[in-house]
């Protein structure tokens, strides 16, 4: 028994705390990550997070890929809201290349990004419910995540790892079916969201489980680099869509919900409120898209022939289109020299792309600023002294996505 893998507290003969390995593959972690918890009874004394179980060296891989092939890597960061990552990456490339996107493309992107935000928050909030013992909400709202995935499917053909859009716009225009599905979503989802909210928001058990657990002050949250809903739950109204609008977010009216205590309940409420705001943004964007008439309603990409694949018919008939097609597909387009940082408001917060180009065909260096990675280090501080079951709730209400954690 002396060879057990436990750390004895300094100077003690007998170990008084229990070591518990939570993960790497534990149903409660919702992803591949490990926590080595030191427990005193049911109270958490300390924890050590071990990550990297699904590290795939994206930053290294990206150094050999032409820009358009990196989109598939970004899918696999936060796979609950891949389209936001895709659009963030396209925005980064467009900033570097100086490509101006038409308004209609911006609005279509906004629709997709807000749908992705809803599906991201929906997963997180319903999983918090599951961890508190309420499975019903989770099963119920999955129908509407399914509808969101159907819209993705209609737009790009994929559901989870979407690889959606291209540098300069989308690969094709949205089909009528896509618009019908968006309309259906706008019509039916509010009722479901309201019902889901009613199940939890004043539920005594849920409130008791979430209020006052996993809290963090605004100051600590900022020092820990929190962004997104987790920071806003602590009372800081920092949202990139307002602070540094991208993709024409400045054309929309919406509120930024903030909490006060930064605890699990506030995080849940902020995400819930954000879904309502996202719905309103989708509604506005959808109407703006409908306002485009005639030729304008056909625009779905920017005029950037060197980076955007030409139409297939042109490739067979026009010399120039053939050349561009070949150069893009073979990754032989030289990209301008420079360094650029572009961030978008991802499901979990500020998703940044730091791209250095030396004028070659591939990035010289690409770094992803992954919000999960940044705020997971605060986990120990969040759960110190709390119960084990609260620690699990805290983990799911932080919305940790292993793909984003490890890159």
């Amino acid at each position, binding site marked *: 028994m002396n060879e057990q893998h436990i750390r004895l507290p300094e100077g003690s003969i007998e170990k008084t705390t229990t070591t518990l390995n939570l993960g790497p593959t534990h149903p409660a972690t919702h992803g591949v990550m490990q926590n080595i918890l030191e427990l005193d009874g049911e109270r958490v004394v300390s924890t050590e997070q071990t*990550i*990297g179980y699904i*590290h795939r*060296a994206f*930053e*290294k*891989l990206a*150094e*050999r890929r032409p820009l358009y092939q990196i989109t598939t890597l970004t899918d696999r960061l936060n796979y609950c809201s891949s389209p936001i990552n895709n659009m963030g990456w396209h925005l980064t490339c467009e*900033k*570097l290349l100086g490509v101006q996107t038409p308004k209609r493309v911006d609005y279509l992107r906004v629709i997709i990004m807000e749908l992705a935000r809803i599906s991201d928050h929906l997963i997180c909030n319903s999983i918090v419910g599951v961890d508190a013992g309420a499975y019903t909400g989770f099963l119920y709202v999955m129908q509407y995540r399914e509808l969101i995935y159907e819209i993705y499917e209609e737009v790009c053909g994929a559901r989870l790892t979407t690889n959606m859009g291209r540098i300069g716009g989308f690969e094709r225009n949205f089909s009528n079916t896509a618009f019908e599905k968006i309309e259906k979503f706008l019509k039916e989802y509010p009722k479901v969201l309201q019902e889901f909210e009613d199940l939890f928001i004043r539920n005594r058990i849920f409130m008791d489980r979430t209020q006052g657990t996993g809290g963090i002050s605004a100051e*600590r949250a*900022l*020092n*820990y*680099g929190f962004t997104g809903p987790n920071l806003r739950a602590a009372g*800081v109204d*920092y949202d990139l869509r307002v*602070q*540094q609008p991208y993709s024409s977010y400045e054309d929309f009216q919406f509120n930024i919900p903030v909490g006060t205590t930064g605890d699990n309940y506030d995080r849940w409420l902020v995400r819930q409120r954000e879904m309502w705001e996202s719905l309103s943004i989708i509604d506005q964007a959808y109407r703006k898209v409908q306002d485009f008439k005639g030729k304008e309603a056909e625009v779905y990409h920017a005029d950037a022939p060197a980076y955007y694949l030409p139409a297939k018919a042109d490739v067979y008939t026009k010399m120039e289109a053939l050349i561009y097609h070949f150069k893009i597909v073979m990754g032989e387009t030289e990209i301008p020299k*420079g*360094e*650029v*940082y572009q*961030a978008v408001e991802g499901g979990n917060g*500020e998703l*940044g792309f*730091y791209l*250095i180009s030396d004028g070659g065909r591939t990035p*010289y*260096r690409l*770094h992803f*600023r992954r919000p999960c*990675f*940044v705020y*997971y*280090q*605060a986990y120990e501080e969040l759960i110190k002294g709390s119960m084990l079951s609260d620690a699990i709730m805290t983990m799911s209400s932080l919305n940790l996505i292993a793909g984003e954690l*490890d*890159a």
Partner: protein
Amino acid sequence: MNLSNEYVQQRLVEKFGDQVHSFEEPYGMLTFEAPKELNLKVLNFLFDDVHLQYRFLTDLTGVHYPDQAGRELAVVYHLHNLSAKHRIRFKVFTDIQTPDVYTATGLFATANWMERETFDFYGVNFVGHPNLKRILNVEEMDYFPLRKEFPLEDQTRIDKDDAMFGRG
């Protein structure tokens, strides 16, 4: 409160003189460089100064330039003043033989894992870091994989029997 690139540059030059240099504005973001011994002084100044208040460390990462003798490794800080909505980029360079750079964990709790990641991939030794060990890679690893001397596998190699994966 409004901050402009010119103002920040002027304040930095007033405070540090020639020590801060290479001011650039790629795509509008003020970028500058300082000797690595000064990194904490510069960060502290940017953090504490009443008018600057860059108190949010957005990102910290490394870059490897194998061709620049004596300054092969760069550590890049992205700082953000949230209330003035202003971002700046700050770089320090170090040689690869003694890649010692002072840690920023005293100022920013978030620098902890970011520095561990930079150490993990580039081998930058952050002096004073409370727990500088590998974070994403296995602990037994004895090299720094994002350095440029480790190329990715040649995509055209044919010596590998890899029929299951569409090659060979």
